[in-house]
């Protein structure tokens, strides 16, 4: 069996006396498409923060390509190919879209250690950045400031930034959150067409999206893995229905 790209072993985290992540095990194979679902407050974003290193776990380990990265900083993990998007846009709002991407490429390649060369002088960086924007149909917005874009377009920039990191593992924290429902399909099309080699963990509330996108699903309840399996198994699981899904399951509820 191949080593998973990302592996989480026995991860625990408490805020004071409140355990928010309890003994979580999780593995992403190369090219995985896994959804992380669970009720509000289940600790999904906390888990992403623990995996990326924004938070330190109380105990447990995070492995990237079989290598223990638990002690590494968030930035160091990012440089090793672990990228994320944020549930709430976290971008350089006062910079142009293109600059947001160029900055990411610059930090990825160590260009930003250069104090002397002009930032725009490397055509290859700009061209690569424009390729990402092309792919997400953002080329026309390249020179607009991020804060001038509608929220839905900003969500796409959020994804473009993560892609510009050339990640091996990508954690998408509710990529369509806050986007008007008329525009969600734009974002979901992008998510569905991402590079098949990247291992992706997506947090999502919309069950239609989850069942369309994911090949595996992990259900998180009160900080612990409740169960995991294929979409069909999860859909058929009566316990999952009871704690979380309820009527939200396609074919069984509000979406039809």
């Amino acid at each position, binding site marked *: 069996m191949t080593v998973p790209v990302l592996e989480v072993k026995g991860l625990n985290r408490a805020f004071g006396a409140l355990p928010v992540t309890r003994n979580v095990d999780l593995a992403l194979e190369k090219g995985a498409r896994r959804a992380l679902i669970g009720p509000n407050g289940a600790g999904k974003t906390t888990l992403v923060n623990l995996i*990326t290193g*924004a938070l330190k776990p109380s105990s447990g380990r995070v492995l990237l390509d079989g290598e223990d990265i638990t002690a590494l*900083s*968030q*930035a*160091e*993990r*990012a*440089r090793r190919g672990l*990228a*994320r998007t*944020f549930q709430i846009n*976290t*971008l*350089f*709002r*006062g*910079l*142009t879209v*293109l*600059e947001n991407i*160029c*900055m*990411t490429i*610059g*930090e*990825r390649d160590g*260009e*930003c*250690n*250069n*104090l*002397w*060369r*002009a*930032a*725009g*002088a490397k*055509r290859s960086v*700009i*061209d690569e950045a*424009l390729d990402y924007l*092309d792919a997400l149909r953002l*080329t*026309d917005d*390249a*020179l607009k400031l991020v804060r001038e874009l509608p929220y839905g377009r900003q969500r796409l920039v959020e994804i473009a*930034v993560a892609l510009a*990191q050339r990640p091996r593992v990508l954690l998408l924290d509710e990529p369509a959150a806050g986007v008007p429902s008329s525009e969600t399909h734009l974002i979901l099309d992008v998510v569905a067409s991402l590079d098949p080699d990247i291992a992706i963990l997506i947090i999502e509330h919309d069950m239609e999206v989850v069942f369309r996108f994911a090949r595996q699903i992990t259900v998180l309840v009160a900080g612990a893995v409740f169960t995991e399996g294929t979409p069909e198994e999860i859909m058929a699981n009566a316990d999952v229905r009871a704690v979380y899904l309820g009527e939200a399951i396609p074919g069984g509820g509000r979406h039809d």
Partner: protein
Amino acid sequence: MDASETQAVLSARSAARARAADYLARRHRFRWPECLPWLLAIAAFFLLPDRMTFGAQVLIMVMFALSLDLILGYAGIVTLGHAAFFGVGAYTVGLLIARLGYTEPISSLCAAAMVAALIGFGTGWFLLRYRGLTLLMLTLATAIMLQETGNLRSDISGGYDGLPGLTIAPLFGIFQYDLYGHVNYLYVLGVLGLIFFFVRRIVYSPFGQALTGIRENVRRMHAIGSPVHRRLVTVYTIAAAIAGVAGALFTQTNAYVTLAVFDFDVSAKVMVMLILGGTGRLYGAFAGAVVYMVLEDYFSKMSPTFWQFGIGLLLVLTVLFAPRGILGLIEGASGRAARRAGP
């Protein structure tokens, strides 16, 4: 979609690409209005020959404000102790002359830059883990601690009486410093030009972009793998060195130095200048320092007791009507003019 339509979409896209690439590739290029402050500085030399001593002080404050702009305007580091590095530079030169009898000006400047950089690196490495109010207090404390260290060893530093009568050797062994400060003025202007060239390169470099990123959104910088702390310490060290050079020039041009160079007033004043001129704009340091110094000079002659009221009023007006400083006002006006002129 038929072939001609596809063609049209593709060419529109490549035009958009070219436009975007062009914008980034050109941004760092020299623009003609950038000559203006230098032309004015040279004009002042010929038009105001009897104000050159004051002129040199203004240029020194421009340099000091420029160093603050690097860390405050670009990297977003809020500091109330920037006088620490100005003071360290000033005292490096002062002690070299008074205690070691070393008077060569240029190498003294380099020594001042190095000592200030060293202190900037040491304190920065420790305190740039913090942000906001904590950082504000720590930078403030740094300047006070340096000042008190000087006070403790007043046998070396001269204490609050300072080190008087510090004369430096002729510049390049040729140019004697004259009573009217003409040589001083050109000397300071030359050093400022050199330092400005460096700062401008840094600001438009990928490293400078990363600083802007840290200011704009530090969480995102961590997430894209930026070594934020290292970047901050680097720019803090550079800014400290430049502030040290400004301090060194202060000692050299005034021929004395006292512990007042570490005063909170000095840190606050340079910040007011920068905000007045506009942060994160390179030339804000020029506009702010010149306007502040000239008005301070004018007010203090007009009313020796209440001149600070004038400065206070100026600051209130700036914050209310020009929150982005004098340069922000100019940019806004030229932007409006450009929109009126064309589509």
